[in-house]
């Protein structure tokens, strides 16, 4: 159906609060990626899900970050006790396999005050 969707599109929160970001991948895509992009920077890999395999969490910057995905559907990225340095655009992408094109969602712009 439609492309990758993410919600919310913008989130403003206070330092110390928890936030949850959502990604709806393209139906049937087994691979799902989360990236972080700070202003004027490239994309930082955060986490990768492939089907029912254990996710690769090697890009998560601290234990305040976690992500879940149920099967091949929605994924949520949770940031606990947010800090100002967490402010960035969080991008989700899905693909039909790891060697194929990644399709990106519009991103969630997170601002931590």
């Amino acid at each position: 159906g439609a492309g990758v969707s993410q919600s919310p599109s913008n989130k403003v929160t206070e330092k110390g609060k928890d936030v949850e970001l959502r990604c709806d991948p393209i139906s049937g895509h087994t691979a799902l990626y989360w990236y972080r992009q700070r202003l004027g920077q490239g994309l930082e890999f955060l986490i990768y899900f492939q089907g029912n395999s254990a996710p690769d969490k090697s890009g998560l910057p601290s234990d305040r970050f976690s992500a879940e995905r149920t099967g091949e559907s929605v994924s949520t990225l949770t940031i606990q006790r947010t800090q100002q340095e967490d402010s960035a655009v969080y991008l989700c992408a899905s693909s039909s396999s790891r060697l194929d094109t990644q399709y990106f969602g519009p991103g969630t712009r997170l601002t931590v005050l």
Partner: protein
Amino acid sequence: SQQGEEDPQALSIQEGENATMNCSYKTSINNLQWYRQNSGRGLVHLILIRSNEREKHSGRLRVTLDTSKKSSSLLITASRAADTASYFCATDGRTYKYIFGTGTRLKVLA
């Protein structure tokens, strides 16, 4: 360190001119992809080139890949104001973990 690095960091050209951006990477790859990003939001996929390919075309876009030099170039011909965006290359390093460069910011002046 980054797997892909784009060059130049910023490029400003007149409408109708060609724009060339380069990407260098460090390890062997299965494929390399080019993306465009407008206004710091979602990325749009442009072209995927596999390691056994040397050149691909898509409309006004031409991508080359030189695996011996670990480099790729993206050429946009007859540029338009609407091509103004940031362009990123992404390489897989023979894993599922694509690494993106910091991008080239292209500005096309009308």
